[in-house]
């Protein structure tokens, strides 16, 4: 479910991996195809139309873009494999959104009792739908989508041990990826751009700080439970005011943090009960932005999904999703979701075209503002899919962070060819 606006900020000049390196990976994929390796992917045309006129003269009302994901996979033998997944997008207007990333490029080896992964990869932790608190290994590619579910590839050494008492994953993360932000032409964005060239870090090693993480996961009957610990540079930036050639900008600052996380899901017949809790220690700016002060906080997402199966004597299932989002920093929270409620409906037609729709409303109980998100998708002609997305930002008062987005309601259509 993609409901969340993880990022309400945008930026200007940030350069990603040059296209030339991407092309060489694509070429590698093509060459290996002749060696009977497996590859797959998609080419997607996207049109994003903003309902209101742009707030800033640098912006547009309609954005066309083209993107592609290509996954190349090769088993070297029964126990080892390599996986390379380049991604790129070309955007009609936003230079920042024209970007590429190596989502994955890793070597994996499976031993009798453990597994080793070396390289760039993606890891997902957690169970809830509205936000992903526990999921901290990969940086968010927030320029891709505002829901926080698109992630940048993370360089890692990952070892997994499977025991009777659970699975333990140990991570060493030797290189930090900065979050992506919209360019000055981009939408949706806030008034001030994020100048990623002026990035700063708490760690003196900056992006080369070595981060560590540990996770234990087990299922006990119908309960699945995970405990995690992260020590390193926060994927979530803080912002300070800066300037670039006389223009006010936001500059991202990445503090160090320690975070413990719990995620659990209890599954009974038609009920899924979900909980994610994090406790984080880090240093943030004080109210006057003059010094760093210690901050500890707890945030959680908890709720349920109830599914009505075979509604009205059809094959369709209708799910009711409800989650409560809380952050004990209240209005001081760096997240938008300090006291919010998600109510959503998920419809799965269970038909040949895999038609699905998801409607969600996140209501802020403190600020009386709400986000509406609708996503609907279906397959056509075997290899094609169409996905419609609508997001609106409503009843936003002046105090709110979302105020920046008030005029950024949009309708988006993705048409993808899969191979």
């Amino acid at each position, binding site marked *: 479910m993609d409901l969340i606006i993880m990022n309400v900020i945008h930026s200007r000049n940030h350069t990603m991996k040059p296209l030339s390196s991407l092309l060489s990976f694509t070429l590698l994929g093509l060459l290996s195809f002749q060696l009977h390796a497996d590859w*797959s992917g998609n080419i997607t045309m996207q049109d994003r139309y903003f309902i209101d006129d742009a707030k800033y003269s640098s912006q547009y009302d309609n954005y066309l873009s083209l993107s592609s994901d290509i996954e190349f996979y090769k088993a070297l033998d029964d126990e080892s494999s390599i996986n390379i997944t380049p991604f790129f997008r070309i955007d009609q207007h936003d230079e920042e959104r024209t970007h590429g990333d190596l989502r994955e490029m890793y070597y994996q080896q499976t031993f009798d009792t453990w597994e080793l992964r070396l390289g760039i990869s993606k*890891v997902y932790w957690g169970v809830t739908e509205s936000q992903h608190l526990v999921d901290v290994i990969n940086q968010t590619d927030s320029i891709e989508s505002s829901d926080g579910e698109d992630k940048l590839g993370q360089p890692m050494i990952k070892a997994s041990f499977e025991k009777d008492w659970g699975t333990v994953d140990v991570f060493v993360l030797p290189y930090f990826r900065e979050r992506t932000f919209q360019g000055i032409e981009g939408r949706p964005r806030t008034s001030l751009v994020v100048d990623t060239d002026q990035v700063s870090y708490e760690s003196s090693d900056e992006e080369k700080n070595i981060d560590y993480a540990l996770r234990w996961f087990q*299922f006990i009957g119908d309960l699945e439970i995970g405990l995690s610990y992260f020590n390193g540079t926060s994927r979530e930036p803080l912002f300070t005011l800066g300037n670039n050639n006389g223009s006010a900008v936001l500059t991202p600052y990445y503090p160090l943090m320690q975070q413990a996380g719990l995620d659990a*899901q209890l599954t009974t017949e*038609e009920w899924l009960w979900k909980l994610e809790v994090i406790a984080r220690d880090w240093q943030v700016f004080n109210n006057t932005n003059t010094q760093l002060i210690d901050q500890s906080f707890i945030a959680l997402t908890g709720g349920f999904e109830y599914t009505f199966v075979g509604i009205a004597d059809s094959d369709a299932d209708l799910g009711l999703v409800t989650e409560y989002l809380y952050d004990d920093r209240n209005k001081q929270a760096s997240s938008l979701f300090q006291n919010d409620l998600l109510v959503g409906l998920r419809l799965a037609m269970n038909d040949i075209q895999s038609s699905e729709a998801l409607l969600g409303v996140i209501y802020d109980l403190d600020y009386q503002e709400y986000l509406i998100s609708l996503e609907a998708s279906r*397959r056509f002609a*075997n290899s*094609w899919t169409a996905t419609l997305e609508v997001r609106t930002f409503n009843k936003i008062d002046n105090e709110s962070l979302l105020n920046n987005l008030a005029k950024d309601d949009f309708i988006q259509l993705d048409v993808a060819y*899969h*191979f």
Partner: protein
Amino acid sequence: MKNTLILKKLIGSLVLLSCLSPVIATANDEARGLEIATEADRRETGFVDSTAQMVMELKNKQGQSSSREVRSKILEVIGDGDKSLSIFDTPADIKGTASLNYSHALKPDEQWLYLPALKRVKRISSKNKSGPFMGSEFAYEDISSQEIEKYTYKYIKDEVLNGIDCFVVERYPAYKHSGYTRQVAWINKQEYRAEKIDFYDRKNSLLKTLTYTGYQKYLDKFWRADVMHMINHQTGKSTTLTWSNYQFKTGLTDKDFNRNSLKRAK
């Protein structure tokens, strides 16, 4: 007079007998039905594990079709439903999606989905055993492992089906959320394998018919049909599963059927 009395007694006992006989016959038929199911199960026991490839062809009433390709791995679990792992190769948009299923006789299956784009393993609600598998005419409960406890049985009659001597056995799902009131199965008398099954919906109307063709024997013991054809009489839609490349006793273990193996599935 005397003769009349005897006649009356005779008639009386005949009446009594004829009243009793359906009861006796029913109890016998149930025992017989269970016996047939038990023998079929006995013959199916011991395959340990298997892997196979499957092409699923979906057709609607107008004859338009679409297809899916799935690779499957099954681990036999003695005393419970089997564990299975399915990896989807087509349609291309769900390529790499994998589904892990621990089937159970009377309680809901445990089911996980791996979504490759998000790298996310999701435990999903599996109450809906009666729901369609990948938009096909096969429900989840039709393709999951067949355990004796999943039904109660009743032997109906012997019948020759396409030249094959069969037992006709009715079975009644024990799972309370099953989509069926009953199934009528034609069981090959010699091999104790299903040749045809009629499915009756919750209103007890004929819903679907499944026919098995191209049976092949593996490891000199286990029968697997190359083709399973399901037609939905109420909608005119049909689904054909074509199986190939069956392998048995490939050395799969529990570790190939857990959450981590789901992420590794390729």
